[in-house]
């Protein structure tokens, strides 16, 4: 099965199920490699990957950096805090400047929805969206899917609850798309003030309390309360939020006995998730998600700029 040619990876919306399973299959190959002593391959030797992060991120940027280096690519991290972007250069000027240095891929995180799409129109290398505003975070959804698939065999037919700050979450949007494309059913659970308008039209069930929202679910995905994106009051207090929407053992009782607990990180312990639950080795797959993240990002880089790209693309293109 060949992957269709992906010029960029900007979002999950619109991807075919075959593309998603293809990327997940590709990721599987890298899990063992990452666990072995010799982690490095030279598939991307001589290629340049630029990590362009307009928003602070340690986890995602490190994950992309590790992924690219393990494939042998040269990686440059653009620290926007000290770059000319702070001197007033526009996003597109930055894009065209970097493009002129002929990278093979640019990995972009930006605080505005749609910024990565805009940038991708101005460069002729591959662009990977590492999170744009409240829009999409495709590699996060892929790594979540890989984690679930390895634990449950398939995504099809699973019932997944995505809980918390849905409104400000690109992770929620990408996961809603991906899970539904792959045949899972999705619930969103949280206070009405953190639900985006007409979210039900994306095909999800909406719940305003954890009891009904978690009932019989296979997977509980917790989201970080993104106070930094909030203008005004969305919830009265952190303690009230934790009381009603924070995941603890009592609320977890509503879910299936073997339900998995996921969180995209970084966690706010005591805000959306109780430490005991987060650290429960039987239920929590939070660290596994981080591990799968590297494999998924290696697969995405391979699919977009890998040496084997032509072989993969050949049948389709």
């Amino acid at each position, binding site marked *: 099965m060949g992957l269709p040619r992906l010029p960029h990876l900007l979002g999950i919306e619109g991807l075919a199920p075959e593309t998603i399973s293809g990327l997940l299959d590709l990721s599987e190959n890298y899990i063992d490699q990452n666990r072995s002593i010799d982690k490095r391959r030279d598939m991307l030797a001589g290629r340049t990957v630029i990590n362009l992060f307009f928003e602070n991120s340690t986890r995602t940027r490190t994950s992309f950096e590790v992924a690219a280096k393990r494939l042998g690519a040269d990686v440059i991290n653009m620290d926007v805090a000290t770059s000319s972007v702070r001197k007033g250069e526009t*996003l597109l000027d930055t894009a065209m400047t970097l493009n002129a240095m002929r990278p093979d891929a640019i990995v972009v995180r930006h605080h505005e*929805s*749609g*910024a990565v799409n805009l940038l991708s129109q101005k460069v002729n290398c591959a662009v990977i969206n590492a999170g744009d*505003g409240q*829009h999409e975070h495709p590699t996060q959804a892929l790594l979540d899917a890989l984690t679930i698939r390895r634990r449950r065999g398939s995504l099809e037919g699973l019932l997944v609850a995505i809980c918390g700050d849905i409104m400000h979450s690109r992770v929620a*949007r990408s996961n809603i798309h991906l899970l539904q494309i792959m045949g899972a059913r999705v619930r969103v659970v949280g206070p009405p003030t953190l639900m985006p*308008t007409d979210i039900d039209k994306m095909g999800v069930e909406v719940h305003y309390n954890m009891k009904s929202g978690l009932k019989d679910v296979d997977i509980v995905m917790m989201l970080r309360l993104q106070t930094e994106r909030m203008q005004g009051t969305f919830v009265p207090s952190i303690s009230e939020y934790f009381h009603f929407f924070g995941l603890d053992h009592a609320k977890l009782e509503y879910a299936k006995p073997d339900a998995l607990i996921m969180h995209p990180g970084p966690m706010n312990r005591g805000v959306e998730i109780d430490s005991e639950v987060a650290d429960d080795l039987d239920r929590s797959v939070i660290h596994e998600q981080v591990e799968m993240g590297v494999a998924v990002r290696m697969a995405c880089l391979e699919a977009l700029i890998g040496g084997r790209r032509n072989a993969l693309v050949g049948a389709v293109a």
Partner: protein
Amino acid sequence: MSGNTYKTAPPHTGSTAYINARIVDPAGDNEYRGAVLISDGKIADFGPNLFASGAPYGIESVDCRGLVLAPGLVDARVHTGEPGEEHKETLESAGAAAAVGGITSLLLLPDNEPPFDDASLIEFVARRARLIKLVNMYAYGALTVGLEGKELAEIGLLAEAGAVAFTDADHAVGNAQVMRRALYYAKAFDALIVHLPQEPTLSGGHMTSGEMATRLGLSGNPPLAEVMMVERDIRLVEMTGGKMHLTKISTAESVAAIAAAKARGLKITCDTAAPYFALNDLAVGDYRTFGKLVPPLRAERDRAAVVEGLKSGVIDAIVSDHRPQDQDSKRVPFAQALPGGIGLETLLPISLELVHNGHLTLPQLFQRLSSAPARLFGLPGGRLAKGAPADLVVFDADYAWQIDRTDLWSKTKNTPFDERPVQGRVMATIVGGRTIYRDDSFVTAAAAA
């Protein structure tokens, strides 16, 4: 359109007959084959029987070959960059674009730098328009100082200087007490207040709330933020006995609320802008910043309700809401992009869709585009009447073409209608009897006649 020309011209003297025209008379609500006689810049005579037996000898005559001849458009909502942002649009470039679009009078918004809250700015616009000698230009005065919605501007002095109405442009006046005082005070001068109804605390989003905004991850501006302000304004008009014109109506609920207020006899009128009956929020799908407007493009049901409002007459007028923005303002992430679209050259062809789709007759359309705005703002043009200014447009209602932003005359090219196929093209624009724009094909016809 490089082959066509707009030009400044000396005052019209003598007489010109436009014969063989399909005349659209909004006041008479009818259309017929006939002629119009212009003398010394004014309409001297018109009708189906005029020159029916051929062009008169000794008078310049223009054979319209069955093209439509109607009162020129009166566009009550135009922003230019002059003064303050001349790189976006000058009064001259806006005048040229208006001429090409069949607009003979335009009303300039006061939100320039500096804002028109001082009589000298109103006089500046009048003087520049006289020098440019293209279309008629009028100006709004600011309703509040600095358009800040706090202190009343000098409404009386601005009116004396020539301001035809008062508005804070795209800023809604959130403070009900300020608006109440403005409505009371304006009564002394019989001044018309124009308000963009948006509850400011709810309308900070970047596109209309709903599924599309949720998918795109953009913060939403709920449609009900509009009708909440419409309803507040209706109560204030009722309380004060003042008069208000609500602008850029974009939602179904607003149309219904205004219909009810009109039925109660309140002095409320309203307009909408071309994007709100021609586009919906799908136009910003792919983060197209050219579709970022104030208020935002709404859902399909709202667009359909605006069309119904135009049909029923609840919505009195159509404006272009021309607002030039340069590349630096638009080629940025959606949330950072400045709102607004240009519209002078596309107002007529886009509005003609209402006729081609069977929603309005041509005379009804020209009530919305010409006679109603002229009447509402007390302007002399916009009608066919003996003695009225000869402000006319000649156009081919069926001519099919595709809007190409690079062909537009405006200095900036931010049209939300780029690449849209349309029907209807201006062949000549006449202001005070002077032909200020003529399409090449019409020049040939006129020369041959």
